[in-house]
């Protein structure tokens, strides 16, 4: 019971926009990505509401199985089994430094060809001496895109049948003419 509750807490922390930080800066916020993303690219958007210099890191959190690192299956993340796993952060991009000069601006970057898994975005706020003064982190789960036609058809399942609609349209057009 205790284990389940712990796992639940972990899932909530991870999936509900886990922007947690050790001394995060109120002028720096990670706008994108949200807790889940589907597709094969990841958009990072950081909002700065004061002139700040930030350094942005993007990692994929991988699981160590034997000697190899494997991506975490996104469908199993919700099962709360991460607590028992040892996660290793693998850098996805070269960290980028962005110097914001205005009172409102955004840092944006699109990372292409990402595979399904768990990712972590870390934003460090640097002072003039390049010392880290604050850190903001968020985790996101990249899900694979659903199979197109199957998922698409589900959207219209509640619609009335095509034949019925066709008859309705036909009657409408007859009476209109």
């Amino acid at each position, binding site marked *: 019971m205790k284990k389940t509750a712990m796992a639940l807490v972990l899932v909530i922390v991870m999936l509900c926009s886990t922007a947690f930080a050790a001394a995060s800066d109120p002028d720096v916020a990670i706008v994108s990505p949200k807790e889940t993303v589907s597709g094969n690219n990841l958009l990072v*958007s950081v909002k700065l509401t004061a002139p700040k210099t930030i350094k942005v890191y993007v990692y994929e959190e991988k699981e160590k199985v034997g000697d190899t690192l494997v991506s975490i299956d996104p469908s199993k993340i919700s099962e709360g089994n991460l607590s028992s796993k040892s996660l290793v952060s693998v850098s996805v991009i070269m960290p980028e430094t962005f110097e914001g000069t205005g009172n409102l601006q955004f840092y944006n970057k699109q990372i292409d060809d990402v595979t399904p898994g768990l990712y972590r975005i870390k934003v460090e706020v640097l002072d003039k001496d390049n010392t880290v003064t604050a850190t903001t982190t968020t985790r996101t789960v990249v899900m694979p895109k659903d199979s197109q036609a199957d*998922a698409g058809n589900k959207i219209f399942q509640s*619609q009335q049948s*095509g034949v019925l609609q066709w008859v309705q349209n036909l009657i409408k057009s007859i009476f209109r003419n």
Partner: protein
Amino acid sequence: MGKPKQHIEVFKTILLVVLFLTTILLLYFFWSNPVTGGFRLADIIGEEPEEIPTYEEVIQPGKIIVHFEGGGYTVLENGDFDAWDKCLQLLRGLNRQKVQAVEEITNAQFDQIMDFQSILYQFHYDLPMDNFIKLYGIPEIAGLDQIGDFSIIGFSSGSPESLFLHSNSKNKYYRMVYGSSHTSMEELLSTIEASTNINYHRIGTLVGTENKTLVPLSLNVQLEEIPYFPEFADLHTPEVKDFAKTFFGESFDFVRKIEESKGSHIYMYGYGDKVLTISAGGKAEYKNKETPQGGQQNYFEALDTAIQFVAAHGGWQTSEGMEMKPFVRHVQSIEDNKRKGYRIVFGMALSDEELYLEGSSSIVVDVIHGQVTQYLRDMVQVEREDYTESTSGPEQQTFSTINMIAQNYQYIASILREEGHDFGDLQGDELFNAVADLIYSVDTGYMKPEYEGQESNTLIPAWVVKANSVMIYFDLYTAEPIGYTNMSKL
């Protein structure tokens, strides 16, 4: 010996008759050609016929948006991949027997289905479906008439046997279910996705709001300032007089001409029934207050009236400079004395880049009951060599789109406030979010600043932000504000 002298006399008589007849004929040509209203040398030596664009050429989607299978978006330029032509081919090739249903769907369903690999043909104005079907040779399909006007046609791989439509005026979404998959659209999407494309994202995703308008994440272009000349730089030329004559025809002799101290020339017929004003900057404005005699026209009929009118009054191209591509930028319903009509705002494109005029537009035509009641013409001439020189340099990175908005949101808000938008007491983040959510289009283009008598005029590469009825311009590389145009006040 008397006979040769007699022959000479006869010859002289014939010569006199021929000369007399030639004189009459020439006088006729010079003074009274009843067909065209005057003698024109071009009628004899011949000139190239005026090219009149077709409605198909001027009606192009404002944006063609592609959503990739792997997520992410791109926006196509008109003409890329022949995307619009392929959509029209698909529509023309529909078999009405195979259409299973035309049904209304919800906004949420439309959004969900477009989240798959999809393409949206988006117009910035509504097109009447029934006229569109007839004019474009599309089969009449039962149920399609319920849509009325439409502004979006879409296709999604999530439902490959369907086409999707949106009526902006009704704010309703529709799905037309077909008997088989539209494979041509699937092929088109695969081709586009396999190509190198510019990445676009929703403003809302980038800034944390709900706005679905797409902007490029980063953009490299080869645009630099281009010198231009107004179409009517010198108002005392015969060309300007010829242009003025086209409005008054036979009654031009009874037209009063006033030259204002600011340099404008005003041609007035009657008690201001018809007035043509050509400003020193070369902008021509014609107003006809005569009561329209025709019946009410639908949009396409009004568009045809406008196209023909422009062709007969200045033409669709300037006499010199490189050719530009006209297109319908904006359409608005208008009414005068209970007579309904349309204001059709035409834009011009230099190669693929649209031309924007501060406080003006290249061509605006008001058509009410088949009569053009107002006509604005503000054309510029760009030399081919100048254009080539300005677009052959190295690519430069533009100012970040989203930071251009972030840096200028208070300026954008001030323009929108001037134009009547109420932001209440919003400030800071809340004001930024409100401004960001009003933006429905962000494009690049060339901007022509309002004429202020400069000796050298240049078109400036610009970001064009469209919100409500206002187009606000920012320098493409520095994001400095450089002017705006209110479409509702043209």
